[in-house]
């Protein structure tokens, strides 16, 4: 009796292996499909560390697709997405893009989210000469110099420096002007680049750097780091960090009573509603970068309609409920591509690239004009200051008045409170 059961189980296992084989052969067989829909291919971080952002981006992209298809599609064809999860792992990206181009035969490609997931696709996309709209890559094109690369994050033409330009401009306008600065960066790509830019600004301005360190990605406790920064007693504290580190540093700064004049800079995570709610009043006074906040000065045509759709779609998906930071840009990078394709009238990649280069696009994130290197022609990295944040209320962050835009002047919505904590 017992043996029979065992054997039947083994047969079942063998069947499993066989089924695997079949599944595989089905993938390797090219999928024949009607050439009718216009296919846009991309890889996206749907699992792994960046999945929170990747999933939110995907929701925004699908809203764009629905909007376009409702209006009759692109070039008279319905738009279809072909996308794969890169698991936030750069090593998966090359395979995915070759699959998209050679097996799925997509008509257009756009990028995944984040510098590390964008770069590995570049050689493949470049070899095919495709227009490459990219979503939040920091200075990817510095190495490749590809003239069909366009990046939607409003960092500016010199991304690594423009990133923190506003922070230092604001600081130097104060009197008495700050003299010293502490720099701290979490040890991973974006944070390091942001702080490297801040370091150059500090040198240019002549600020004395009294603390300059990195801490390992995902450190459980950053209290000791903050204590060292406090002991350094700098006027300015510029930090590049990821959500886990940002939360720890904000808490530690409050616990230890950091006495800097300006505190913040490049802290990722403070843009997300869940973290904002948890930190509550601890955020008050912090000056940090952002890309879109619900201030009157950033009320671009279409953005509120988009966010309304996003907030419905995002429910129960475990992503940011308001969708302020990234999603409008994920919508906009497709908006630009769509506008360009429509204007050119066909899929000639050279012409599309030329059109994008010479045009100023009106999008949900405002007017977008690209510089020669594919970055925004002028920076619109916001410096926002948290103000009057009440404890335990997530709804307040969906309204104006909590994140005052201090920089750039074109969208400024209030004046800085300096020093950051009275």
């Amino acid at each position, binding site marked *: 009796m017992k043996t029979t059961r065992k054997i039947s189980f083994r047969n079942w*296992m063998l069947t499993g292996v066989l089924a695997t084989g079949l*599944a595989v052969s089905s*993938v390797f067989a090219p999928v024949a499909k009607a050439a009718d829909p216009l296919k846009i291919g991309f890889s996206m971080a749907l*699992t792994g560390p960046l999945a929170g952002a990747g999933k939110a981006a995907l929701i925004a992209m699908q809203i764009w697709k629905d909007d376009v298809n409702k209006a009759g599609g692109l070039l008279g064809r319905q738009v279809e997405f072909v996308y*794969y999860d890169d698991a936030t*792992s750069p*090593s998966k990206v090359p395979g995915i893009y*070759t699959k998209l*181009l050679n097996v799925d035969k997509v008509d257009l490609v756009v990028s995944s989210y984040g510098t*590390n997931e964008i770069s590995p696709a570049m050689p493949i996309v470049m070899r095919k000469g495709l227009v490459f709209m990219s979503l939040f890559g920091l200075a990817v094109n510095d190495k490749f110099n590809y003239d069909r690369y366009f990046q939607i994050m409003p960092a500016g033409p010199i991304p690594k420096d423009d990133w923190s330009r506003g922070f230092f401009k604001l600081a130097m306008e104060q009197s008495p002007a700050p003299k010293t600065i502490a720099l701290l960066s979490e040890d991973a790509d974006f944070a390091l680049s942001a702080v490297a830019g801040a370091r150059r600004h500090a040198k240019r301005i002549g600020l004395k750097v009294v603390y300059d360190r990195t801490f390992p990605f995902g450190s459980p406790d950053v209290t000791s780091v903050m204590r060292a920064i406090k002991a350094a007693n700098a006027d300015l504290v510029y930090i590049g960090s990821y959500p886990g580190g940002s939360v720890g540093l904000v808490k530690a700064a409050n616990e230890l009573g950091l006495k800097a004049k300006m505190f913040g800079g490049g802290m990722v995570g403070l843009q997300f509603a869940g973290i904002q709610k948890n930190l509550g009043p601890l955020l008050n006074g912090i000056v940090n970068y952002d890309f879109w906040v619900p201030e009157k000065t950033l009320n671009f045509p279409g953005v509120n309609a988009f966010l309304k759709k996003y907030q419905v779609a995002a429910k129960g998906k475990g992503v940011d409920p308001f969708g302020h930071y990234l999603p409008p840009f994920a919508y906009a990078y497709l908006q630009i591509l769509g506008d360009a394709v429509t204007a050119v009238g066909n899929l000639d990649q050279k012409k599309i690239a030329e059109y994008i280069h010479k045009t100023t696009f009106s999008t949900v994130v405002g007017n977008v004009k690209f510089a020669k290197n594919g970055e925004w022609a002028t920076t619109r990295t916001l410096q926002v200051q948290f103000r009057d944040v009440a404890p335990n209320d997530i709804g307040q962050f969906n309204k104006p008045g909590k994140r005052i835009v201090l920089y750039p002047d074109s969208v400024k919505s209030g004046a800085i409170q300096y020093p950051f904590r009275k």
Partner: protein
Amino acid sequence: MKLDKFWISVVVVLVAGFAFTKLVDNEFYFFATYVVLQGLVMAVAWNILGGFTGYVNFGSAGFFALGAYTMVALNKAFGLPLPVMVLIAGTLSGLLGLGVGYISLRLKGVYFAIATLAIALVLETVVNNSHYLGGAAGTYVIQPKESFIFDNYIELLFMFMLLIAVVATAVSRYLSASRLGMGLAAVRDDEVAAECMGVPTLKLKLISTTTMGIFMGLAGSLFPFFVTFVDPVSAFSLLIAVNSIAMPMIGGTAVWYGPVIGALVLGVVQETATVTISSELNLLIVGVMLVGFITMAPRGIVGLYEDYKAKRKGQNNG
């Protein structure tokens, strides 16, 4: 006779691989098979130590990354021809393997496993703090324009990795079939007894760890050119360590072809999952397959097949 069969299939595989590059244009197949082959080399290498001697290496990713970052450094500093750099990378991680072998003098079982994990973590911290290697931010590696006799660079990488995979498999087979293999098995089954019987256990272990190190380094050496962007998170990826343990376990650790089968099955399933089920399920598959196999079929696919054969034989006789 048996030996002939093996070498014939080696030649067939290499020729078929070469023909593949000439006949097929679709680059995706090369990317997908490259990843499977990379997993295969890692699995075979892991098994040379783990399967043959019973010493578990938790730090496979460290060897892999040492190979990868050696390439990054060599390419940046001297820009040597690819095969030369690959050999140097393999040699370096072979030396690391040799060092690990000496550690096994003092550390058995789980202590050894933890030590390998610690080595990988120390290496990762060093890379994180090395500005020259790109640090935590990662670094770019631009593929050379010319690709030898192949149409493009990925075909060259594919063929190179296929060659490494074949050599690794042949070495693994040699180690398990020869007298050396019996010695290794003796180490696995009872190291003290083997030592008393006059088996040169240290020498055997050193051979085993060094070979493992070389092949893991070789597997990693082509990685920078494959992804063109290397950062510590992907080079020291946990998935590399998991796969190099899971593949032999699923295939069967006792024989040289176990990891080959395991790597082909798991690798193909993973590559398929990446491009079909685009979700978290990919990782779940590895987990479920691993747990499923080791609880229900502890000798892996090879074991299942042997039992199946035995049963057939039993039926015929009866």
